[in-house]
């Protein structure tokens, strides 16, 4: 029994230590915001890399999500003769939940993994130490631009995802389910509030930060050659995905919970 408690205690302490290290890493990364040198070009490059090149993946998943939502909610609601709620359900689900979550998960897989691999390779080949010896703070040069890019880019991607998700629902609604186009659009607008969209964008900012943070953190910590870098990539994607889903619940509770 005591052995069991000791193990639980050790695991808990380990968890606290890991959380502390992660928080420390985030603070070190963000500390550079307040004083020069700044690297605007690096931030811009990360925004383009994260945002522009993620557009196809995020766009496609958003459209299909909107389409499936329309189809599913139609089959569900037709049992209660509530078909007219389809448009509302689509737009609320997409802006509040699915847009940010899907964009976050896609970017975690696409960008978070690449970040961990790039920074991990730089770590195991001494490039990060080389930065330091060339009087350049690796947190400012590598970590901060990525954290900021995540924070800025994901909301932008989610705006696109929201629009395309609603569009996917509209296509299925009008073409396949026989809704009147004008009615569908009116339905979409009527129950949509600013808060629905804003909460989704705030979530997106948080998710983008998480993706960058986990990519940088695991890359930075990687040890031991190609195997270590591979492991860092996996950790970055898995931990970012879990943290996105967890924080999504917490944020939803904070925004809409009673």
């Amino acid at each position: 029994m005591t052995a069991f408690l000791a193990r639980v205690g050790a695991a808990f302490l380990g968890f606290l230590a890991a959380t502390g290290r992660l928080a420390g890493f985030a603070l070190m990364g963000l500390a550079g915001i307040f004083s020069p040198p700044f690297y605007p070009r690096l931030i811009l490059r990360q925004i383009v890399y994260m945002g522009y090149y993620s557009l196809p993946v995020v766009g496609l998943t958003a459209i299909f999500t909107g389409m499936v939502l329309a189809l599913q909610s139609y089959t569900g609601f037709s049992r209660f003769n509530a078909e007219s709620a389809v448009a509302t359900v689509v737009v609320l689900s997409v802006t509040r939940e699915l847009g940010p979550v899907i964009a976050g998960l896609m970017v975690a897989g696409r960008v978070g993994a690449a970040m961990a691999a790039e920074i991990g390779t730089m770590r195991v080949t001494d490039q990060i130490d080389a930065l330091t010896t060339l009087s350049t703070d690796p947190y400012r040069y590598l970590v901060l631009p990525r954290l900021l890019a995540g924070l800025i880019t994901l909301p932008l991607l989610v705006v696109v995802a929201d629009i395309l998700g609603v569009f996917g629902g509209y296509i299925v609604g009008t073409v396949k389910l026989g809704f009147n186009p004008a009615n569908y659009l009116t339905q979409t607008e009527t129950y949509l509030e600013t808060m629905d969209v804003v909460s989704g964008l705030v979530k997106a900012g948080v998710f983008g930060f998480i993706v960058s943070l986990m990519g940088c953190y695991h890359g930075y910590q990687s040890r031991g050659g190609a195997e270590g870098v591979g492991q860092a990539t996996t950790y970055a994607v898995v931990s970012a995905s879990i943290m996105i889903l967890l924080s999504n619940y917490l944020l939803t509770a904070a925004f809409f919970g009673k």
Partner: protein
Amino acid sequence: MSDGRTQPANAPKIAVRDVHKSFGPKVVLDGIDIDCGVGESLVIIGGSGTGKSVLIKCILGLLHPESGSIRIDGVETVGMRRAARTALMRKFGMLFQGAALFDSLRVWENVAFGLIQGRGMERAGAKRIALEKLASVGLGPEVGELRPAELSGGMQKRVALARAIAAEPEIIFFDEPTTGLDPIMADVINDLIIKCVREVGATAVSITHDMVSARKIGDRIAMLHKGKIVWQGPATEIDDSGNPFVEQFVNGRAEGPIQMEVRAI
């Protein structure tokens, strides 16, 4: 050489005292004492895996020793704050054993990195200096436009060397500068290192397994074994050191006090 030095001219540029460093249970440095004077060229020799690279990473502040003192120009650097450490880095240049070039940047941008990012020089001027430094390691301007991945191992090493000396630092560390080079190019690099020390007045700490190079570039040689400095003396005395470790190492014999942990197959 720095103008703002306040301590007497005979104070060592680098003073390492009783430095200990382990990785988990593995003790790598076990009480290192060594000095390096201003404008002196110190060569560190020792078997593979004895901690030579770890020692210079400790001096640079890239690794943190568990105990001991490392003074640069009389200033204690163990436990130094990050801002002070970044400022101190301006005195250093480092050639990493594995070159450690930034593979997202072109070759000349690698060489100019410390000038542009570290010192805020404009790009055109930095590029001119970078191409000069590349020429001094025998690489033409066309190489400057390539990516590090397009170079051979020896070329990467020379680019890394050019990068280490580009900002004309006061103290330069060379981790195996001639490993992987042909004998002629190795001698060119030896001459370049000597030039940095004699003409620019830099202090140099080099690690090498190449005894020809050690004799040529070193004013003083120190031998590392089992976490301690087992011998140090002027480079001219390396052949009659009277130290069994040094004799075995210099003559490259498998038999002697240094036991390689290998099993016959």
